[in-house]
């Protein structure tokens, strides 16, 4: 029989999800609306989760330094908003600026991570935390001119929350949206998400992708094959950062706001638990893992809200979500540690 222990979180979540789906129907909550929400949330958060894959596969662990990538995305979007570029063009411009910013930030981030080999995850957490505050300083003095982004009084420094209604709020969500009865299929959003997923999938069918996998699995082997380890790791880290930057653009256009200052701090944890929930065991994480994990994680979130609010006290859904996301990370760490044996005497 196959060993099911590593799959306990997924099995548990699937069972949990089924129970909730049944409860939702029983409690008379409109299930089509929930399905819509879960689809949108899948694509909205999915890119951030996919962005973890290159770093996982190169052996740098989960990118807890995701705030670095998110800051790059925020910068990219701020530039687009500053020039008042609207609509789909505005969004694409934001993505383009984010890619450039992500590339620059990624290079620096890779430089640091290559010096702390083996401890990338903990280093990532601290890099993320310190970087967010460095960026806070930048936001406070950034020379942006669009009044919609600045504090209304004084006109200096960025607002913590910038509304995107006038620029590219929900442009992807509404692109090619098809209504079938009550169900709205956000085809444009799903297509964009699918395209990025395909890009990452295709990456691992290339020369670079194979080198990334080899470095992640066995550095010594890769070295014998003449691969430049640090360069390959840097490529993967830059890719993760760029994807993360694009990810926050997708997230923000759906959410409708750019959130600056301390907002990126906690973004890494839900993404990390989603990919772990999807069954990632470190190396050789596939796009499928990311999509499955995000779907389970976000759908549960979508379902817990209304159900908990109907049956239990309000605000319970947020509590459950936090317990879930941190509990899954903890479980993954426990499972990872079990494989090792220690000298016992």
């Amino acid at each position: 029989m196959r060993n099911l222990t590593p799959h306990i979180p997924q099995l548990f979540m699937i069972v949990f999800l089924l129970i909730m789906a049944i409860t939702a129907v029983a409690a008379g909550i409109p299930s089509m609306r929930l399905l819509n929400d879960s689809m949108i949330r899948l694509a909205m958060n999915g890119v951030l989760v996919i962005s973890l894959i290159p770093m996982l596969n190169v052996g740098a662990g989960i990118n807890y330094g995701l705030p670095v990538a998110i800051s790059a995305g925020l910068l990219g979007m701020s530039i687009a908003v500053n020039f008042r570029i609207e609509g789909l063009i505005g969004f694409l411009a934001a993505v383009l600026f984010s890619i450039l910013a992500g590339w620059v930030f990624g290079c620096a981030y890779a430089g640091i991570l290559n010096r702390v080999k083996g401890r990338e995850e903990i280093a990532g957490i601290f890099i993320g935390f310190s970087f967010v505050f460095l960026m806070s300083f930048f936001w406070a003095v950034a020379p942006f001119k669009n009044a919609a982004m600045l504090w209304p009084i004084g006109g200096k420094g960025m607002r913590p929350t910038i509304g995107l209604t006038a620029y590219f709020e929900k442009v992807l969500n509404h692109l090619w949206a098809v209504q079938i009865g009550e169900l709205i299929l956000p085809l444009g959003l799903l297509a964009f998400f699918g395209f990025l997923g395909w890009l990452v999938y295709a990456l691992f069918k290339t020369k670079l992708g194979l080198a990334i996998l080899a470095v992640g699995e066995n550095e010594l082997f890769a070295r014998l094959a003449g691969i430049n380890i640090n360069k390959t790791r840097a490529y993967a880290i830059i890719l993760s950062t760029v994807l993360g930057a694009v990810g926050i653009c997708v997230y923000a256009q759906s959410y409708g706001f750019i959130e600056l200052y301390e907002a990126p701090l906690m973004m890494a944890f839900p993404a990390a638990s989603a990919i772990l929930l999807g069954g990632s065991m470190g190396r050789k994480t596939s796009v499928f893992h990311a999509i499955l994990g995000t779907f389970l994680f976000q759908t549960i979130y979508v379902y817990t809200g209304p159900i908990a609010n109907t049956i239990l006290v309000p605000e319970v859904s947020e509590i459950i979500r936090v317990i879930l996301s941190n509990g899954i990370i903890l479980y993954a760490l426990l499972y990872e540690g079990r494989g090792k044996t220690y000298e016992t005497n």
Partner: protein
Amino acid sequence: MLKICGISKSFGNQEVLKSVNLEIPPGEIHGLVGENGAGKTTLLNILFGRDIIRHSGGYSGEIYFDEQKVQINTSRDAIELGIGMVHQEFALIPNMSISENIRIGREYVHQPSEKILGTALALIDKKQTREEARKILQKLGVNTDVNLKVLDLSVSLKQFIELAREISRENLKLLILDEPTAVLSREDAQAFIKIVKEIAEKGTAVIFISHRLEEVIAVCHRITVLRDGNIINTYQRDQFEINRIAESMIGHSLNRASRPRRVLEEKSIMAFRNFAVAMPGELIEDLNINLYQGEILGIAGLSGHGKLALGKGIMGIYPTAGHVSIGERILDTSNSADALSQGIYYVPDDRRETGLLMDHSIMENIIFTALQQKNRFLKPSLFSLMSRIDYPASTTYSINSIQTFDIRCQNIHQKVSTLSGGNQQKVCLARALAMEAQILIVSEPSRGVDIGAKARILEALSRINRELGTTIIMASSELDELKYLCDRIVVLYEGKNFGILSPNDDDLTFALAFSGKRKEELCVI
């Protein structure tokens, strides 16, 4: 004192000890000799309760200590019984002083504090600990400041401190010495042996392991020869004869098939000049050889004498000195990409650690290096990094390789971790072939491989050499396969080129060369 009855031990399918019996009375120095892989270290690990034994499924058989049957599960058990071990690799704590290392776990404490706080929290009596350490070292003829940190000491001094730690134990009954003199100079080794003899005279039994046969003969009361996990013979003092012991170590193999010798033009394609590799435990020093076009050059020698370091040095895994040149060009040994671009390919001895991507398929393992270095198996593209893998071409090539090398598998998409050792080795060779290497360096090609697969691997190497004209350097601890394949065999002794022997030389010459002796010298002794 110690009696071992029918000890057997397997690692996976490989039986490394086959029902071994051994008896050592108090006060005896018992020599244990054998080739690499004969099972010496495994036997010691069992006696000292090392974790590797328990983690790999324990052992079978019985151990009697002082007439009592004992079960040694952990090193703590062994120490409580009174077994001490001087390790081949130093088991010292670098950042502690000499005296602390010698008395570790058995420090002298201030009595009143022990009564109040208990043993674990008692205050250490540093003065007495130091004093005792100094006395013990003086007994060993070492005069040094016991406050020095171990990390600042010379290798030979460290060896003496290990010995001091063991003999300072009040209950020491059996002392195991694993290659204690390997790192010592001749004078130090003699001093060391003198001390060991004194310890034995006080009634401590000693197990002495060394590759220096003459040393074993000089110090031991009896010598047991291990070969392939069996005890071949136990010699009494009056039967000691270096030739006989060397011969029974090597054994006579059944497969003596010899190949027709060929005469090769001595055209050098690769030259080593003062080449040195700093591989820990396998140093190569000052190597000067020429590699001739089209030959198979064997590298022989006991483990620890440098034969595994050659390939690793060329591929930049360990730091090197001196230089290697291909024709006129000097190789950059810090970067494996340079060696690969010059048509050199290295098949490492530790397949699982460095030779294979265990989690990937046979196909990916075969095409990997050629794909990365030569852009084979790729679809044309603007940026070579982003070019996609050409799956049809890779599949065809892999299927051909499976047939050429007779790799036993379900299909090319099977993970290599599920293959047997022999088939894994064939995958490594198939990868080398995809690289179209000019010079192939193979290390221990038949280690951990069963006999049938071994023959096919050797056959494949021979074919690569004769049909494709690839020059091969082959390092191996199996003398038979070196003699079968090679045109010349370099024997390394203590990291230096001891001599280039012909495969037609007899086993005795080789056995003596392995322990740094020449036949002519023997007559003098």
